[in-house]
């Protein structure tokens, strides 16, 4: 790896993509902020003139609630998008394992829904911080999910379970129902390479894929 005095990811293309995505996510937030205040103002005005709008108030209220839900969806998406964008800021840095998984999973929701597969993150309330390579870590989780989806069928629920274990973090991936011995797309090989770059291990144990990462990567 090339020496990197400013601690950013050494690949300038990755840094560039991060900056562009960060700008887009910031713009999305501003748009959502405008929508949020505008709908909030409509709420406030409706409350003032309730007796005049009594016949339509319920429809307005329902519509505004729907808009509010979309705002929340957009807010969550932009938060995760911003996490993705800032991953290249440091070649090695603190990574919140659960939040990073949520970031990766949020971008895969539509694909999972189309394939009629479920995805569950167990233990999402635990605080699990490691010092590792943020971009490669995100890529590793994405690859693990991709592998699991390749070995799942409709109605399967893929489960990611992060576990704290002294100097290591274990991520158990289960719920897939197809034969794991085939690796037609080379995903397992790619995943193993990514995990190795994070100084971890990746192995199949019974009906689980177990990824083990050190809490502190050695530089």
């Amino acid at each position: 790896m090339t020496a990197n005095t400013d601690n950013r990811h050494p690949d300038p293309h990755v840094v560039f993509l991060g900056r562009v995505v960060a700008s887009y996510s910031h713009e999305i937030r501003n748009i959502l902020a405008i929508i949020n205040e505008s709908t909030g103002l409509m709420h406030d005005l409706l409350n003032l003139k309730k007796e005049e709008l009594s016949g339509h108030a319920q429809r307005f209220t329902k519509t505004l609630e729907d808009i509010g839900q979309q705002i929340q969806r957009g807010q969550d998406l932009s938060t995760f998008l911003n996490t993705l964008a800032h991953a290249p800021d440091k070649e090695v840095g603190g990574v919140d394992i659960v939040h990073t998984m949520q970031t990766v999973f949020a971008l895969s929701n539509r694909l999972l829904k189309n394939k009629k597969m479920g995805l569950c993150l167990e233990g999402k309330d635990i605080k699990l911080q490691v010092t590792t390579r943020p971009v490669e870590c995100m890529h590793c989780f994405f690859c693990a999910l991709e592998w699991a989806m390749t070995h799942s069928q409709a109605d399967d629920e893929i489960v990611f379970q992060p576990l704290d274990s002294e100097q290591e973090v274990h991520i158990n991936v289960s719920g897939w129902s197809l034969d794991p011995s085939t690796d037609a797309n080379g995903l397992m090989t790619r995943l193993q390479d990514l995990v190795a770059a994070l100084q971890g291990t990746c192995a199949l144990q019974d009906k689980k894929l177990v990824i083990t990462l050190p809490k502190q990567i050695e530089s």
Partner: protein
Amino acid sequence: MTTMKVLLIDDEQEFTGALAERLELRDYTVQTVDNGEDGLSAVENNPPHIVVLDLKMPGLSGIEVLKRIKSRHPDLPVLLLTGYGSTEDGIKGMQHGAFDYMMKPLNIDELIAKLQEAAGK
């Protein structure tokens, strides 16, 4: 009771327009400006009780505006707004004397609570 005067400094005029109206419905007096230089002028010419300041603006940055306000008016509370997903900018702002920071989109009730908290200080 004196009405609280709020100065909103943010380059997104649709955002400040709607927010100003909502605050005025709640009995606040609100002035809005869309850039840092005008914000600094407004602080001098029409002193507010609190400034609500966006961190990311073209021209003079939010942090620079904050520093200049605090250098001349150290007791004037400044509430920062940030659209970024990380809290680093907000924390940096507080190191430069901001009263607090909030993420966009705002929750109006939380904003009101922060304004009242600032007024009490």
